[in-house]
C-alpha cells in the first residue's frame, strides 16, 4: 500500500493581478447601448472622474488562472486537517452550496414584498425553531453577520433591558480566558469590562465572581465549555450569582459544538446566546468570512430583539416581518442578516436532524479526548480535567528545551497539517489549542499526534530546522514587524518611498484567533 504524502501548496509565486495587466486587454464588456447615450452634462463639471482607476487589464483566461493559482497557495479544510482551537473547522458539506445557489434564494431582493418572499420567510422561521430547540431559548434574531456582531447585539439588548427597568449599570464581567471580541464588544456597548480569574482547575473562580457581583453589574459573558475546552460545572451557581443582582448571563456560542443535543444553554440559566453558524453549523469560513451569528434570547428579552423578525401569522397562514415595538434595540444589519449563510445552515440542520446533531457532539468530544490522550505524554495538558470538544496544551517543556509554541505550530505545516491555535487562551503559557471536530477520521488524528510527537523529538537533533520552519510552504516566516513599521497597504506602479512609523507592531507572539 502506498503511504500518503503530506498535502502541499503551490510554491510557484504568482504575480499581482496588476502585474499581469497589458494596456487594452480586457475581460468583461457591456451589451451595446440600446438607449440614447446620456449627454455630457448629465454629470456636472467637477463631479466626473478625471483619471481612470488603476484596475487590471487582463483577459478572462488569465484572470481565472490567476485566482486558481492563488487558491493553490492557500490552505482550506478541503486541503487537509485544520485543528484550530475555538474555530470548529469541520467539513463544510457541499450540499449547503447547492442549497444556497437555488435561484429562488440567491436571486431574491431583500426589499421585495412579503407576498413574494414567503418561502424565504418560512425557511427563517423553521431555522429559528431549530436553533431554539438546540439552545433552549425562546426566540432568535438572524441579523448578526458574525459572532462578534452577535455579542454587540446581545450587549445592546442587555443595556436596553436594564434601561427599560430604569437601571443604568456599568460593568460586564468576563472570564480571564475570554476571547478578545468579548471585551471589545463590551466597550462598544458602553460598558466597562472586568475580568474574573480562573481557578486552579481552569474554571471560573466562583467565589471570586460572587465577591465581584453587585447591582452595577449588567451581566456576565462566558463560553461553556470554556475556552480551555472544560465544562463549567458550576454554571448554575454562576447563573444564580449573576441573577441575584439582576444581571444577565450571556452565552458565547463559540463552543456550542461540544454540547449539541447533550446540554442546552437555556437550561443552564443563560439569558442571551449567540451561535456561530460558521462553526457549529458547518458553513464555510470563506478565508475570514462571511459567517452568521444569530442571537437567541429568553422569553423576557424577546421584545428587545432587533427588528424586523420573521414571523408566522396563524390566522392568515402567511409569513411576515414583525417590526416589534419601541423596546426593540433597532436594526443591526442593513437587511435581514447573512441570508445565504442561513440557507446553508438550514440545509445542515435538516440533513443532520435531532439525531445527527447529537452525534456531532459525541464524535467531536470523542475525537478531542482521543487526541489529547495521544499527546499528553509528550506535551503538558494546560489543565488535567477531562476536556470536551477541544483541549489546550502548553509547550512550556518544549520551550525550556528551545522550541516555542510558535515554532512547533510552524513546523506542523511541514508535516501536512494546518497549525493549531497558539498563544490563546492568554492565561496559558505557550498555549497550543487543538480542536479536531467530529468530521476527522481516527487515522488523521493518529497522524497528527505522531507529527506533534515527532516534532518534539526534533528538539535537540534538529532544533535549527524546527526553529526556521516551515520549509515546504509557499513562503517562509514573513517579517511581520517590518509590515507594521513600513506599512504597504496597496500596490503602486512605482513603489513609493517607504514610510517608517515608530509605532509598535504588537507582540511577536500573537493569539492566532
Amino acid at each position, binding site marked *: 500500500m502506498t503511504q500518503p504524502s503530506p498535502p502541499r501548496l503551490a510554491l510557484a*509565486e504568482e504575480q499581482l*493581478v*496588476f502585474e499581469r495587466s497589458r494596456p487594452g*486587454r480586457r475581460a*468583461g464588456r457591456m451589451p451595446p447601448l440600446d*438607449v*440614447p447615450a446620456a449627454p455630457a452634462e448629465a454629470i*456636472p463639471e467637477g463631479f466626473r*472622474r478625471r483619471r481612470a482607476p488603476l484596475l487590471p487589464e487582463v483577459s*478572462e483566461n488569465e484572470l481565472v488562472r490567476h485566482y*486558481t493559482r*492563488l487558491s493553490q*497557495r*492557500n490552505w*482550506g479544510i478541503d486541503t487537509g486537517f485544520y485543528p484550530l482551537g475555538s474555530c470548529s*473547522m469541520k467539513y463544510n458539506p457541499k450540499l449547503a452550496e447547492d442549497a444556497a445557489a437555488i435561484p*429562488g*434564494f*440567491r*436571486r431574491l431582493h431583500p*426589499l421585495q*414584498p412579503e407576498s413574494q418572499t*414567503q*418561502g*424565504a420567510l418560512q*425557511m427563517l422561521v423553521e431555522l429559528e*425553531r431549530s436553533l431554539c430547540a438546540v439552545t433552549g431559548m425562546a426566540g432568535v434574531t438572524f441579523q448578526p*453577520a*458574525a459572532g462578534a456582531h452577535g455579542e454587540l447585539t446581545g450587549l445592546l439588548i442587555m443595556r436596553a433591558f436594564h434601561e427599560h427597568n430604569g437601571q443604568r449599570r456599568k460593568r460586564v464581567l468576563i472570564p480571564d480566558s475570554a476571547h478578545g*471580541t468579548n471585551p*471589545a464588544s463590551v466597550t*462598544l456597548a458602553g460598558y466597562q469590562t472586568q475580568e474574573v480569574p480562573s481557578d486552579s482547575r481552569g474554571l471560573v473562580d466562583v467565589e471570586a465572581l460572587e465577591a465581584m457581583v453587585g447591582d452595577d453589574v449588567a451581566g456576565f459573558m462566558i463560553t461553556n465549555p470554556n475556552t480551555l475546552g472544560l*465544562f463549567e460545572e458550576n454554571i448554575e451557581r454562576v447563573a444564580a450569582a449573576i441573577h441575584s443582582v439582576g444581571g444577565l448571563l450571556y452565552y458565547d456560542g463559540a463552543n456550542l459544538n461540544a454540547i449539541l*443535543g447533550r446540554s442546552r444553554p437555556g437550561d443552564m440559566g443563560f439569558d442571551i446566546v449567540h451561535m456561530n453558524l460558521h462553526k457549529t453549523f458547518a458553513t464555510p469560513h470563506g*478565508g475570514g*468570512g462571511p459567517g452568521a451569528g444569530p442571537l437567541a434570547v429568553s422569553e423576557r428579552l424577546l421584545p428587545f430583539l432587533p427588528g424586523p423578525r420573521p414571523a408566522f401569522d396563524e390566522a392568515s397562514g402567511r409569513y411576515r416581518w414583525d417590526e416589534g415595538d419601541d423596546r426593540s434595540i433597532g436594526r*443591526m*444589519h*442593513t*437587511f435581514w442578516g447573512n441570508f*445565504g449563510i442561513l440557507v446553508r445552515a438550514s440545509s445542515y440542520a*435538516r440533513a*443532520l436532524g*435531532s439525531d445527527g446533531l447529537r452525534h456531532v457532539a459525541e464524535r467531536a468530544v470523542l475525537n478531542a479526548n482521543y487526541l489529547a490522550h495521544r499527546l499528553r505524554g509528550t506535551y503538558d495538558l494546560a489543565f488535567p480535567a477531562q476536556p470536551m470538544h477541544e483541549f489546550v496544551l502548553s509547550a512550556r517543556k518544549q520551550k525550556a528545551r528551545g522550541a516555542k509554541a510558535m515554532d512547533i505550530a510552524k513546523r506542523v505545516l511541514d508535516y501536512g497539517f494546518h497549525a493549531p491555535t497558539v498563544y*490563546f487562551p492568554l492565561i496559558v503559557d505557550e498555549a497550543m489549542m487543538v480542536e479536531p471536530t*467530529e468530521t476527522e*477520521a*481516527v487515522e488523521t488524528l493518529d497522524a497528527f499526534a505522531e507529527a506533534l510527537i515527532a516534532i518534539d523529538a526534533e528538539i535537540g537533533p534538529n532544533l535549527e530546522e524546527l526553529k526556521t520552519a516551515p520549509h515546504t510552504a509557499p513562503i517562509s516566516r*514573513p*517579517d*511581520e514587524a517590518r*509590515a*507594521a513599521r513600513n*506599512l504597504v*497597504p*496597496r500596490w503602486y506602479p512605482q513603489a513609493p518611498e517607504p514610510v517608517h512609523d515608530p*509605532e509598535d507592531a504588537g507582540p511577536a507572539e500573537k*493569539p*492566532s*484567533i
Partner: protein
Amino acid sequence: MEFAPHTDADVRMMLDALGLASVDDLFAPIPSSLRYERPLDMPEGHTEIEVLRELGALAARNRSTDELVCFLGAGAYDHHVPSMVWPLLSRGEFATSYTPYQPEVSQGVLQALFEYQTMISELTGLEISNASLYDGGSALGEAVHMAASATGRKAVVLAGCINPLYAAVLRTVARGPDFELREARWGSNGTADLDAIRALADGAAAVAIQTPSFLGTLEDVAAIADVTHAAGAKLIVHFDLTSAGILEAPGVLGADIVVAEGQPLGNHLNFGGPYVGVIACRREEARRLPGRLVGETTDREGRRAFVLTLQAREQHIRRAKATSNICTNQTLNALGTSMALAWLGPEGLRELGETCLAKARYCRDRLVEVAGAKPAFDAPAFKEFAVRLAADPVRVCERAAADGYLAGLPLAEHLPGRGLDDALLIAVTERRTREEIDGLAESIARACKEEA
C-alpha cells in the same frame, strides 16, 4: 445524513484507548442536572436528495428576480455577476479556509485581499482600505467610530438623504457610545443643504453623506467637504462603487473616510446578505481603522509576502481598547468584488457607469412620457431616481408584479413624513434592456389608470 466518518469499530477502539465504557462517559464533566436526555425538538435527519427537495420547494414559494424584471434597488442591486466569480470563490482553498493568521499557508487569500485593498483605494481615492466589514450599514457605523476617535467628539451630522436602513443601523450602534445623531434635511432638489450642514456641524465629529444619495441624486462632495472641514469635522462619504468609472473618487474631492456596500460588484442579491462593507481612509488614520488589514512584507529569503498587519488595533491583541470588535468579516464577498472589478477593468467600469446612467435617464423619460410620472427631484442622478405617480405606489407595484415587474421601492414606508407618499424609487442597472424599460413604463401607466 451525517458527516462524521466514525465506524462502530472506530468508536469502540477510541473509547477503549480512553478507558471509557460508553459515549455517555464523555459527557461526565456535565452535571447530571444539565444533561439533556431527550431528542431535540426538531425533525430527524434527511438525505441530500430530501434536503434539496425541501429547500427547493421553499425557494419555489419565492418570486425571485429571475422571474420578475428587477427595477428595485435601495441598497441592493441586480447587477451582472460575472460568470467566473462564483466558480472561483467556490474553490475549497478559498471558501473553506479560516482567517489567514498563518501567513505561510494563506498567501492566496492574503494576496487576493491585498489586490482588493488596492482596487478599493483606487475607486475611493483614499490610500488605505481594510479587508472588509459586514455591510453598508455597519460600515457607516464603523466610520463614525473612527471619526469620533480622531476628533474626540461624539456628534455626527447626517446630511442629504442617506439610506434609512444604513441610518437605522447607525442609530442602533450609536446607543453604546452615546453618539448624538443630527439630521440635516435635504433641499428641494434631493441633495444636501449646505446651510443646514453649516448650522449643525459645529462640534461634530463627522458629517456623513451618501452619493449618489438614497434618492439617487449626486451630492457636491467638494463643497460639503469645505463646510465640514471648516467645522473641524471629518467627512464620511457613503459611495456607490459602480459609479466610480464615471464619478470622481470621493477621496479626491475631500472625503476623509469612504464607505460603501460592495454587493453590486460580484455578489448576488441573496435576500440581503452576505454582502460586503467597504471602508477606506487616509494613511494618517490607519491606526484607527477597524478590522483586518493586509500589508506587504518579505519572508526570510526576501520573497514578497503578505500578512495581516497593524494587528495591535484589533480585538485579539488590544481587547477592550480595540478600534472595533470585528473578527469574522466578509472576506469571500470582498474577493467577489475584486474579481468583478478585475473582470471589468478600467474600461468596463467606465462602460458600466455610462450604461447605468443612460438607461436610468431613458427609464425616467419613458415614465414621464408614458405613465405621466413626475421626477421627484431635479438634481443630476446616476442609476436610481424617484418619480411621483398618479396612484398609490404600493398598489402600482402590486399590479406591475402581476405583469412581471419588480417596479421599485414605494418611498412612503421608508421615508415617512417627507412628502413622498406618492413617490417610487426606481433603479436601472446594465442588465435592463430597452424592451424591459418600455414594458415597465407601460405597466405602470396601466396600473395608474386602473387605480385612478
